[in-house]
């Protein structure tokens, strides 16, 4: 009973109690059937569907963007994936020219190198040339023809409308405006256009005009031409405000010639002496042996004085005027001693000044020696008068049609604003630019030209020196050669510009043999050079008239003198939308992404320029719009002068350049019938606004650290009998009086390099600091551009930098004083990159062994392995390691400043052989390991040893002066081994890491730290008396 009472029975429901048949049927199931069952969905189904749904939604959410990759179904001939092709071509930008070789990968140009077959540029390049490959992939490029109101149009529509309009002009004046054209075929095309529209006038102008020189030479020699210069023959060079290493006429040519005269050593004990008289610190001035500060208004007077000094020696009549300046008498003395091997150049665009220069060179016998008038150059043909008249005519309404052929006068002509205002009166306005600009935006029709890398063309930089431009890529957009446009508008039927160039060359230059073979050779070489007859000229200029013109035109007067100049980065501004140039540190100021006014320290007393913190100042010139710019304190600048770089203040150049700085072309005046790049009588007032300039270097002196920079003078070097002058020594515990060279001490035995041992030599004497190598390195190695803000944060990514140091007047022990640059300092440039230390301090501290030593002496970086502790960078004595602080690729934050990694178009420039580094990893110079590898593979394929000179780093290839030599120091026959006079320290271990450099100029930076770098520097030698 008791049991029963505890045995309670519970029912699930009435159905169980009544044992309902329906209930019994489903009793074994866990859940009673519900309405879901009827619909055919179980709980499991629900879970399945939910699971699928969640998975599908999350998958859909993280779906990768679709990227189209088109395989080669029919592989183009000569295009092998991963094999580079090279095409000889020609860089032209207005009158700037360079014969180049374009490296393409899978049909995309990715790198530009110099063409060593050209006797003009001799394989040299410049920063602008190196950077121009990125301009091909500029997002501001025009993608299709445009007609009125910027409407997208087809070429047929555009041509029809243009021809209609041009015909409607009737006999009205049509003007073709261009920069200097050095292409004979293009000029022929323009002639054809002119014959169809006879009222056409072709006007050339140059951003940096040489009209004064053309006129001076016309007066002196009877022909308006610019001669070739040969700096290599000059033993004494005097330059009055001509920055011939950076912007004056043909810097690529001149740097090469100049460097030849600057090489010095046991085997060549002579070098040129270079005097520079200038206002701002230019690249040429920075390399000069003697530099004198003058004002722009004194340029003419200095030359008159020099003329008088030399005329006295030569027994010629002196002229009135002249002003004495330090070093001027000495310069005259040296010039006179080296007459026949002397050269005087001046940057002035004033006819009178250039006549005086011609007279001086005539006295010195430079013509036929350092100046070659029989070999005129075509770089600058601009006519300042014609251009000024044109602007006036436009405003007067007497011009009916204008075609801007790849030029941008609204921006880069002093009268640009006037021109823009008057353009409304012109019936037809056509622009053929390849990318957006200020002038094209005012045109009715835009007929986009190809980028030069997409186009056929030719060039005649010098008389009888020809260079051919061939496309390295199919046109990316719907552009058309401007020459074809001209021909179509002229109603021509034969408009294939390639055929035209080819036929022209056939007619003009081809003589005998198989034409196709001849033409192929021309294309292969890229250049065609025909002999030029040597002729002599006789000077017939009127020096005294010129001197009195100078005296009356340049009075100086009160206030500041403003001069505008092309700097070594964006130059005249035509390539300003190129981030490679914007982020290239200015060779002198080291500023990037910045526009500023350079001011002498004496004139900027109120500004403590430490860390490039500064203030805005307003520059007002009578009759001109005041310009407000931040001040950059420039040691070496003449007090009382203000220097402003051109090329900034673009408004329609594209995202990269727009809004940086002010356009100072309007400050250019007109003196003596030609453009004058300096103006006197300016006021300079604080605008009361603080500003931070972005610079890559904020400490200006090398603090008398002789182990960093070694320099001497030629006379000192002679005095020590061409022996090494300075060698750091270390006292040892054995005997404190016996000091040894640091290289003799090591904690380690060191490895043997049984195959190659890569090394580099950098000559501080021939390095002029231009920065072409920096751009070349950036392009070759996919180095990220980071933009102004990040440079202010001191995070530029450059693997190779050029350190620029000013000398200081302070005593060696005055550590505080050494921080201040001298008032007129000497300058030294030191390219600094990973030194590939044999005892690398970075390698030992990496916790994950991401940076290691190769069997060939390279310090290698394994990006995959790097976890980003930055310990290696801290422990690097040279501070050459660069950290990826952010994700610089595929990141909208950096789209504007780093289009090469953030836009589909820009990415085409990337070198597929080099990894794009991810966020959080360290990177640095690799000695272009991809090029080394390529060279080795090539040699291996051909079953032969690697030959010296087959592997050339990007920096070496771009260096016009040959300051960088890379090679195998294990190979006694290599160029580097011979240059440095390399010998093994221990004869029993010829391949050990310890190598002795017998060249007395060779030294290693921070030798006493004991890291045993694989880079040697060659001491800077100045040709000074004391």
């Amino acid at each position, binding site marked *: 009973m008791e049991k029963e009472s505890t045995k309670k029975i519970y029912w699930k429901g009435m159905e169980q109690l009544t044992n309902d048949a329906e209930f019994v049927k489903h009793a074994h199931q866990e859940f009673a059937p519900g309405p879901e069952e009827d619909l055919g969905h179980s709980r499991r189904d629900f879970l399945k569907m939910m699971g699928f749904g969640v998975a599908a939604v999350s998958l859909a959410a993280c779906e990768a963007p679709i990227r189209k990759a088109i395989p080669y179904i029919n592989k183009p001939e000569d295009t092998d994936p991963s094999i580079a092709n090279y095409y000889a071509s020609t860089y032209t930008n207005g009158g700037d020219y360079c014969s180049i070789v374009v490296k393409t990968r899978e049909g995309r140009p990715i790198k530009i190198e110099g063409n060593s077959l050209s006797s003009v540029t001799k394989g040299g390049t410049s920063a602008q040339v190196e950077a121009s490959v990125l301009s091909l992939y500029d997002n501001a490029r025009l993608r299709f023809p445009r007609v009125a109101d910027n409407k997208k149009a087809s070429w047929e529509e555009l041509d029809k409308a243009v021809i209609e309009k041009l015909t409607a002009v009737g006999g009205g004046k049509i003007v073709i405006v261009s920069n200097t054209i050095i292409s004979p075929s293009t000029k022929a095309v323009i002639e054809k256009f002119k014959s169809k529209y006879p009222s056409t006038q072709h006007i050339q102008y140059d951003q940096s005009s040489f009209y004064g020189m053309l006129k001076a030479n016309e007066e002196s020699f009877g022909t308006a031409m610019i001669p070739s210069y040969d700096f290599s023959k000059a033993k004494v060079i005097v330059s009055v405000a001509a920055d011939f290493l950076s912007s004056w006429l043909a810097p690529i040519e001149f740097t090469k010639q100049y460097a030849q005269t600057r090489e010095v050593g046991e085997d060549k004990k002579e070098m040129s002496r270079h005097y520079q008289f200038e206002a701002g610190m230019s690249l040429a001035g920075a390399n000069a042996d003697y530099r004198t500060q003058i004002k722009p208004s004194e340029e003419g007077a200095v030359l008159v004085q020099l003329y008088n000094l030399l005329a006295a020696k030569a027994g010629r009549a002196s002229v009135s005027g002249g002003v004495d300046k330090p070093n001027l008498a000495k310069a005259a003395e040296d010039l006179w001693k080296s007459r026949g091997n002397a050269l005087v150049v001046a940057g002035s665009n004033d006819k009178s000044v250039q006549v005086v220069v011609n007279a001086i060179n005539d006295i010195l016998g430079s013509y036929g020696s350092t100046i070659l008038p029989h070999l005129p150059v075509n770089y600058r043909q601009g006519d300042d008068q014609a251009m000024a008249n044109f602007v006036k005519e436009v405003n007067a309404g007497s011009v009916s049609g204008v075609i801007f052929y790849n030029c941008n006068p609204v921006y880069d002509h002093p009268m640009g604003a006037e021109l823009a205002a008057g353009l409304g009166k012109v019936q037809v306005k056509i622009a053929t630019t390849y990318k957006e600009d200020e002038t094209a935006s005012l045109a009715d029709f835009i007929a986009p030209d190809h980028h030069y890398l997409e186009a056929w063309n030719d060039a005649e930089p010098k008389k009888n020196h020809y260079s051919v431009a061939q496309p390295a890529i199919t046109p990316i957009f719907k552009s058309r050669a401007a020459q074809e446009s001209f021909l179509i508008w002229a109603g021509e039927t034969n408009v294939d510009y390639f055929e035209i160039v080819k036929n022209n060359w056939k007619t003009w230059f081809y003589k005998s043999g198989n034409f196709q073979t001849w033409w192929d050779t021309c294309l292969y070489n890229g250049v065609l050079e025909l002999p030029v007859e040597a002729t002599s000229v006789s000077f017939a200029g009127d020096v005294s008239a010129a001197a009195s013109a100078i005296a009356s035109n340049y009075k100086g007067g009160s206030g500041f003198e403003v001069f505008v100049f092309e700097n070594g980065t964006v130059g005249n501004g035509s390539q300003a939308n190129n981030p490679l140039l914007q982020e290239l540190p200015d060779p002198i100021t080291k500023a990037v992404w910045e526009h500023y006014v350079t001011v002498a320290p004496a004139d900027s007393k109120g500004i403590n320029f430490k860390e490039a913190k500064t203030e805005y100042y307003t520059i007002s010139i009578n009759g001109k719009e005041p310009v407000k710019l931040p001040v950059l304190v420039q040691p070496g600048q003449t007090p009382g002068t203000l220097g402003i770089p051109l090329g900034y203040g673009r408004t329609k150049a594209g995202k990269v350049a727009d809004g940086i700085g002010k356009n100072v072309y309007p400050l250019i005046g007109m003196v003596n019938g030609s453009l004058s790049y300096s103006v006197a009588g300016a006021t300079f007032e604080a605008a009361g606004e603080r500003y931070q300039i972005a610079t890559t270097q904020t400490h200006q002196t*090398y603090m008398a650290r002789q182990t*960093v920079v070694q320099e001497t003078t030629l006379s000192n070097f002679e005095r020590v009998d061409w022996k090494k002058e300075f060698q750091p020594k270390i006292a040892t515990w054995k005997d404190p009086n016996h000091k040894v060279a640091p290289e003799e001490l090591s904690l380690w035995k060191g490895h043997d390099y049984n195959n190659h041992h890569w090394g580099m030599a950098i000559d501080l004497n021939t390095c002029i600091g231009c920065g072409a190598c920096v751009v070349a390195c950036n392009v070759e190695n996919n180095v990220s551009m980071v933009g102004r803000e990040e440079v202010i944060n001191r995070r530029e990514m450059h693997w190779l930098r050029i350190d620029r140091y000013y000398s200081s007047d302070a005593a060696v022990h005055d550590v505080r004083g050494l921080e201040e640059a001298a008032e007129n300092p000497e300058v030294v440039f030191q390219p600094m990159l990973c030194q590939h230390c044999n005892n690398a301090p970075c390698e*030992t501290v990496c916790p994950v062994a991401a940076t290691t030593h190769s069997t060939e002496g390279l310090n290698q970086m394994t990006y995959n392995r790097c976890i980003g502790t930055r310990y290696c960078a801290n422990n690097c004595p040279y501070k050459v390691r660069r*950290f990826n602080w952010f994700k610089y690729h595929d990141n909208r934050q950096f789209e504007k400043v780093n289009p090469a990694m953030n836009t589909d178009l820009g990415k085409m420039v990337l070198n597929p052989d080099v990894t794009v580094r991810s966020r959080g990893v360290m990177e640095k110079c690799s000695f272009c390991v991809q090029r080394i590898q390529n060279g080795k593979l090539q040699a291996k394929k051909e079953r032969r040893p690697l030959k010296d000179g087959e592997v050339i780093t990007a920096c070496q290839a771009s260096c016009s002066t040959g300051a960088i030599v890379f090679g195998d120091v294990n190979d006694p026959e290599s160029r580097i081994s011979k240059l440095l006079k390399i010998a093994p320290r221990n004869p029993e271990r010829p391949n050990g890491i310890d190598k002795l450099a017998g060249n007395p100029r060779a030294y290693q930076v921070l030798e006493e730290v004991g890291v045993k770098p694989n880079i040697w520097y060659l001491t800077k030698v100045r040709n000074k008396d004391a």
Partner: protein
Amino acid sequence: MAVTSVIREPLVTGGKTIKDVSHDISRQVEGKPTKLWWMAMAISLALLGLGAYACAMLLWHGIGVWGLNKTVGWAWDITNFVWWVGIGHAGTLISAILLLFRQRWRMSINRAAEAMTIFAVICAASFPGFHMGRLWLGFYWALPLPNTFGSLWVNFNSPLLWDVFAISTYFTVSLVFWYMGLIPDFAVIRDRAVVQGNKIRANVYNALSFGWQGGAKTWMRYESVALILAGLSTPLVLSVHTIVSMDFATSVIPGWHTTIFPPYFVAGAIFSGFAMVLTLLIVTRKVFKLEDYITIYHIELMNIVIIITGSIVGIAYITELFISWYSRVPYEGYAFYNRVVGPYAWAYWAMMTCNVISPQLFWIKKIRTSIVATFVLSIIVNIGMWFERFVIIVTSLHRDYIPSSWTMFYPTWYDVGQYVFTFGIFFTAFFLFAKFFPVINMAEVKSIIKSTSEKK
């Protein structure tokens, strides 16, 4: 029946009995959190939240949110790392070395000091983590784990790797030591909970005490383990900061490349650790009314340790200056010249004032025994020790060999945020500890109640 030594200061005042000890300490754990505690906790959590935001931004955008640059690759991150590691040292010193030296005054402070050690090491360890460019890979690539990369192994030459071992060993030993000491005390709380009828607490603390029963044999084993761990920890007091100092000493950077660093860093670590212990305990004894257990005498003894270590540090600073001149190495000479009069001279002199001059005030008994003065000076010392690391790291890096790379370092809000984050961790953990764990080692204090406590 309490006995008081005639020559020694009593270590426990107020005539406490063994029962009082259990009651006074456990009462914090058993009672409801006070308003003050809630406020403190809220502030800590706010700091933690703010810091977590800074961390999230750091992880999302990259190290670039900090103010570091191409020349100064470490600044606040490693400064904070060394600072926190240093702070931790006092706990180990108190619990291990003072145990071996049979310093009984350590008994009422070692629990909190050890807790501080553990939390400080956690804070410290966060910096080497967050400062990595690729934290997600660093976690396992910095460890010598077998992998599928072939012969790829960590670099045993790297001081950073030594750090990984040093810090992880230190943390493990400290944690075990600390927890072991807590076991008998957890058992006390459990026993009291059983009596009070709070089943949840009884179960939780039973689990935490691993079912401690307090048998004689258990006590014997407990004491043996304590001695063994103390023996293990003792070299760690010296080794951890020695290895941390080698991050700098083994480098080639002037101002870092210094053989004096290991002893100098250890002294500095104990110096800052004691200062931090004082800061925390002065607050804790007040809030939890433990004045009878953490007496002025305790504070005075710790202040004496601060005078000694502060003086060692001072001598080290002066030695560095002397050697930099005596060596005649121009870079070395400039590095120290630049410290003293360069752009970061303010940091150097802040360090000198806080670390060398201010602790000398403790020679005066009145200051040494003043709670307010001690509290203020303990904070000053900690500020000074932060500056010491900042001076070593940043002034050495910002102007080293090649003048073209010389630059300044400017911290951003994210540098500050990361520091705030560790304060958030530290105080959150410390307040949780103070509320839920017995802040004074009851078992040990009870052992001295009979011998060195004050008579009622």
